[in-house]
């Protein structure tokens, strides 16, 4: 199969899975969902790592490095703040 076609199929299938799973996230968790989504989208750092580590020109490496830096902030910041928020959601513990 044409590799581009295969990639497009993956794109559409993942979109459908995304719709199915995410519609089930309750409104009270939408903010953590947003932050965690951003952390996930920052998987782009893997491309940034390649750009920074394999760059054959200085400018390509600088661009890759900047991308890596910003992407890492997103990954670490995103997951930590989602965790911080989610740790606050507590059930109704009945004190007896």
């Amino acid at each position: 199969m044409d590799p581009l076609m295969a990639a497009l199929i993956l794109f559409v299938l993942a979109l459908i899975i995304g719709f199915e799973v995410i519609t089930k996230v309750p409104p009270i968790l939408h903010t953590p969902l947003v932050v965690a989504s951003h952390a996930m989208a920052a998987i782009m750092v893997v491309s940034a790592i390649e750009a920074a580590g394999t760059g054959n020109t200085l400018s390509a490496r600088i661009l890759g490095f900047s991308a890596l830096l910003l992407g890492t902030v997103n990954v670490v910041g995103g997951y930590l703040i989602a965790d911080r928020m989610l740790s606050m959601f507590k059930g109704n513990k009945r004190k007896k």
Partner: protein
Amino acid sequence: MDIVNIIRNVANKYQAVFYLITVLFFIFGLRLLTSPRTARRGNVVSAVGMLIAITITLMYHGILTYKLIIIGLAIGSIIGAISAYALDLRAIPQYVAILNGFGGAVSALVGVSAFIQKELPKNVTSLHFYSAISVDTFIGTLTFWGSMMAFAKLQGLITERPVVISGKNIINLLLLSISAVSGILLVNDPYNIYYLIGILVSASLLAISLTIAVGGADMPVIIALFISYAGLSASAVGFIYLTHGLIMVGSLVGASGLILTRIMAKAMNRDFYGILLGNITPPEMSKLQGGEDIYAGRIKSTTPEEAVMILEASKKVAIVPGYGLAVAQAQGPVRDLMAELEKDGIEVYFAIHPVAGRMPGHMSVLLAEVDVPYDKLKTLEESNELLPDTDVAIVVGANDVVNPTARYAKDSPLYGMPILDVDKCRSVIVIKRSLSPGFSGVPNPLFANDNTVMIFSDAKPALTELVKEYRELRR
């Protein structure tokens, strides 16, 4: 030489498998995010998936130097960690805008770097490679500048009011065309950097022109829309090098953004498809003035001292928070009020409209922060089932979302918007500084109802006072 190649080939094959595992971790993590009980675990699962992807990339690629990578990872992690713990949760929307801008920047930077390196992966044609770079740099730049504008608006650095430029649609169309033409030219002549610059500049201007037209009230929609842009830019990066993991994750995140945008658009009475096409400007503000006529002689003002009598006689109380509650830092007193009422066996719940707060789900986080249990937080649909059986609704810092004209007044800009039907409760206590209208500019007949009493005060002193009076009453 052969052996090196074999190892590389095997490594590349396994890399795809490991990316697939990452995607599965992400999907499983999102699934756990569907319940507050398991959500925290889901987040960890998703983070582990990310760790796998990063580790594999670090190990298996023909990386020339690790120095830059280690420095980048270290500095990025420190900034991320410090910011995550120092953040005031009321400022989450601004933080999200920055994360979003960074996401766009990463995508654009990787695109430009790919353009400079010109190392086409095998089985990727030049047409495919440079088209992907064009789309990627366009979306990335658009996302970056759009998010920075949103941040500036949320932070109050520039006016929150929508700035309407005359002929805005033509300008936007023109900028979009310049981007498209530059993209096509770039694909034809990948050695001319001016075409890339053409995309970068026109996308930046387009982002500014689109977001400057958005008013503060519509920010939740913008935030949601940008999430799908962030997802798309991750996918676009994936398309450059045909990295399947990135394509799938970007698509997942894109879906989450689209869903939230649709929810927000519905909750705010905006046209979802119009928003997708960049038409985010709110409809004409209502010319309906005449608030004084509706209110004249019919407003009953009261004090916390009298209001607690109403509360004392009730069995079921709804608290309806708006963003005004958070602005006034009154989450603590509102939690205390809940605790006091519950001591007497009064059932209390929070009725939360989707747009209470400045981004989807914002109010839930702010209430969870002060230890309100999540089963007390009711959605719009759940609340509207409970409200007719509720004795008292306490409305704090909310206005448009409880305006009953949304149900019947066809000429109101709120008409058709889903609202919390607090007017169906036996009595309503509204805590508000004045009778000034909400974002829609429409007067609210709820305030003039026979069963409504108003406490004209800031949220925090009023609630603190209510708690104090209630304690005294019960003693």
